[in-house]
């Protein structure tokens, strides 16, 4: 499946947001995930051409 991750084309082997986090080796505690502009949970099924963004949780200082 081909999605857009932070505006870049990305080939995903799995099917869900949880799979994407695992494949990208991202700790789920450090990001929220938006798909096509909406916040989603980790079981969200992804589809071709979905636009996914990782929103970092840690910011400021």
């Amino acid at each position, binding site marked *: 499946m081909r999605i857009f991750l932070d505006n870049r084309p990305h080939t995903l082997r799995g099917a869900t947001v949880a799979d994407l986090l695992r494949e990208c080796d991202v*700790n*789920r*505690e*450090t990001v*929220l995930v*938006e798909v096509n502009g*909406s*916040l*989603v*949970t*980790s*079981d*969200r099924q992804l589809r071709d051409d979905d636009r996914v963004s990782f*929103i*970092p*949780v*840690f*910011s*400021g*200082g």
Partner: protein
Amino acid sequence: MLCSCGSEAVYERIHEGNAYCASCLSHQVEQTCYRTVVHEHLIEKGDCVIVGVSGGKDSAVLLALLKKLQDALPFSLKALAVNEGIAGYRNESLSVARHWCATLGIEYETVSFPAGHELDAFARRKHCTYCGVLRRSLLNKGARELGATKLALGHNADDESQSILMNVLNGDVTRFERLGARPPSRGDRFVPRIKPLRNIMEKEIVAYALVNKVPFYRSECPYSHDNVRRDVLEVINALEQKRPGTKMKILGFYDGLRQQRDVRSNSLSHCLSCGEPSSGPLCRACVFLSTQASQ
């Protein structure tokens, strides 16, 4: 995944096994904040609360929550920002804070690091230590001059769990005792600090900001990469992923310890009348004896 109300969930609280839609998440976050305010007696009627703001998500959400709380509890609310002099970062973040305060109708003030002592001019290592000391001092002085009876900070559950562990790693018992939603007062010149977000996870605060369109500045401080807090944060996040609930358990451990210590220190006080151990000013035996004598 569905929220218990049947709507599509936007957030999952993994350690509890619950998922929340935007509306239920907002309700949860607001209730957790207000519960902390009430149970810990953080804000009382007539208080002048100054919120330390940076333009980041914590202080932006804190302003929104306290503004709402004013509908139920009469207190005054102002915002105070510290400009540490970090080029390409602080002016931008404070611009977001200033606009958010204007939107909410909250008075906004800024204090700055003294000329020549800006963070960018501090050439040595340990920027975070230097910055933290000066920020706390300027916030306290600025809040006092604005007539504050409370200084509200946007510290969240993640910050607090990191502070607890950092103090353990540093062997720093004195600082360890200064944590909690309402750290112990340290004298007349110190405005009492309160942390209404202390029991809310950082991730929930970001989610709240996103679903409620609370504007916040998203970049990280350029000096925050090489500090102890960053190392501790990574350890705790790794543990939280493997063992959900770790952060809240660290907070629970601290609260339990403090409670036990309070009980212990109470039990170590002495009766003002007979000098025997007592949990109050007079031991129960003396209270009984004086009651009987007066009858």
